[in-house]
């Protein structure tokens, strides 16, 4: 969901609280946390060429993938897999208990502890451990959220009314929930104010438990809960997954071509997952700041400007993706419906979302992990200036860029394999990808632009 400013904000807050630490630490940390430092400093390339190169790389990888025309080879890559032993019920129960304890502790510390920013355990647990670290494991290892999910453990302990879930709602509540969660995150100082964070967390717990009591936990977490759904999609990308009720080791991303989303609501969810990352970064750019100031100067309330851009942007992303599916349908001369193509190709966007998440969060995760350990040792009396990693090596910026690139390459390959699965003619398969490739090129250029723009604090919002 959120990534650009999450890392930037985490770094900013690291800087704010770590004033006593020598300045060079701050500089190094600021570099390590954002792609902007990595991409702009060492090379003096004009922005348009930098963007064009990014788009070009995606285009080239599409062309290169189109050279792989052996159906057996494409299928063999995706069918490779090994069975894994089941972790066992005891371990599972222990993990669930631990997750619930962490949730309880986070709420407690968030409400009680007077320390702010990175001296507060609640902030560190949510943003560094959970958002930066745990979320990365859902796509790098496997989706453990169905087991760990403390909200689910709580909900399952409560009696369920098992009311029928209104089918016409589909998964749209999760799309709305995702938009709402990220909106709260962007529009409020959720990464600085532990009381606010604990309040949001408590509200989320109550809403989730309430929803699960009404429609039953299985239905709630499968269709309405944005977090469980986001992790389920990320888990499709991971090398460990559940197939036919058994744990299975597979190549990363190899389950995606077989993933058929249920409908437009699922497609909207995946596209929204990508969009919220972009919006979060977009409001922290210079052009947005000056544009927003101009519009607010003309008499429009700031919240309308932000919310308007947010909703229009989300709709724009969805419509652009729909248009790409229609273009693919037209170019491939197929009678498969545009909605069906959208449902098949949308999973190929997931590696891109994961690549950006990792690139944006790994730096702050590494820098702030020592902070977390120090604060976790005494949550209610944290050290006045908890330690941070003194900086990451210079090549780390290149590593972040590599994650973004890797996400895109995997996305292109997944789209290729999906197309081979869909169409009898291999030429048709290539042509069907024109639309989704165009979207990927456009998205790469947009995100690289956001990443290359220097960070400007979003005006009018308290963060």
């Amino acid at each position, binding site marked *: 969901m959120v990534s650009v400013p999450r890392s930037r904000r985490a770094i900013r807050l690291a800087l704010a609280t770590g004033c006593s630490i020598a300045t060079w630490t701050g500089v190094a940390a600021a570099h390590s946390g954002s792609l902007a430092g990595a991409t702009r400093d060492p090379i003096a390339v004009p922005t348009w060429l930098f963007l*064009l190169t990014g788009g*070009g790389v995606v285009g080239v990888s599409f*062309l290169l993938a189109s050279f792989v025309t052996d159906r057996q080879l494409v299928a063999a890559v995706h069918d490779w897999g090994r069975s894994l032993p089941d972790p066992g019920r005891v371990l599972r129960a222990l993990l669930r208990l631990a997750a619930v304890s962490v949730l309880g502790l986070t709420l407690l510390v968030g409400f009680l502890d007077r320390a702010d920013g990175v001296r507060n355990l609640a902030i560190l647990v949510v943003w560094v451990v959970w958002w930066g670290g745990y979320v990365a494991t859902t796509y790098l290892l496997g989706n453990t959220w169905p087991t760990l999910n403390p909200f689910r453990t709580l909900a399952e302990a409560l009696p369920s009314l098992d009311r029928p879930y209104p089918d016409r709602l589909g998964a749209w509540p999760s799309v709305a929930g995702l938009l709402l969660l990220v909106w709260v995150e962007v529009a409020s100082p959720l990464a600085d104010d532990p009381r606010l964070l604990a309040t949001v967390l408590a509200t989320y717990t109550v809403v989730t438990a309430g929803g699960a009591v009404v429609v039953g936990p299985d239905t709630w977490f499968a269709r309405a809960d944005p977090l469980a759904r986001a992790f389920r999609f990320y888990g499709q990308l991971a090398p460990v997954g559940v197939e036919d009720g058994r744990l299975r080791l597979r190549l990363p991303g190899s389950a995606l071509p077989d993933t058929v989303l249920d409908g437009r609501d699922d497609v909207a969810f995946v596209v929204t997952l990508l969009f919220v990352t972009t919006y979060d970064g977009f409001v922290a750019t210079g052009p947005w700041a000056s544009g927003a100031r101009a519009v607010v100067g003309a008499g429009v309330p700031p919240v309308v400007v932000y919310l308007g851009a947010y909703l229009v942007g989300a709709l724009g992303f969805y419509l652009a993706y729909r248009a790409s599916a229609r273009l693919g349908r037209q170019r491939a001369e*197929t*009678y498969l419906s545009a909605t069906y193509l959208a449902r098949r190709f949308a999973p190929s966007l997931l590696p891109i979302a994961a690549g950006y998440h990792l690139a944006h969060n790994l730096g702050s995760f590494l820098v702030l992990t020592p902070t977390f350990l120090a604060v976790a040792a005494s949550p209610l009396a944290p050290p006045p200036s908890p330690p941070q990693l003194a900086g990451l090596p210079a090549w780390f910026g290149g590593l972040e860029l590599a994650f973004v690139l890797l996400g895109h390459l995997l996305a292109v390959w997944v789209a290729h394999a999906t197309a081979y699965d869909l*169409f*009898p003619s291999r*030429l048709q398969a290539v042509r069907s990808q024109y639309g989704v490739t165009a979207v990927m090129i456009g998205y790469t250029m947009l995100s690289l632009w956001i990443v290359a723009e220097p960070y400007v604090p979003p005006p009018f919002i308290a963060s």
Partner: protein
Amino acid sequence: MQAHDPETDVPPDATPYVCDYCGQPFARETHLALHRGLEHASSLSEEERAAYEDAHDEEVDNLRRFRLLALAALVMLYFGFLMTYAVVT
């Protein structure tokens, strides 16, 4: 995220080529022939097998042409970027 039958949408004025085995419509006869060869290989008649082989040969020719074009595009992109970088930086 379960398996579904592919959802199709045939324009009202079109005359699709429909697969006798599974009912999936196609815009071109070659697509249908290829589909039969790939999805229903075990139950093909002599005639359908021949149609599949013809369609497959044609596909291979077309793929070869596409590869050449893709290679040309790659070369142009490569030199385009090389030149741009040489001029700009």
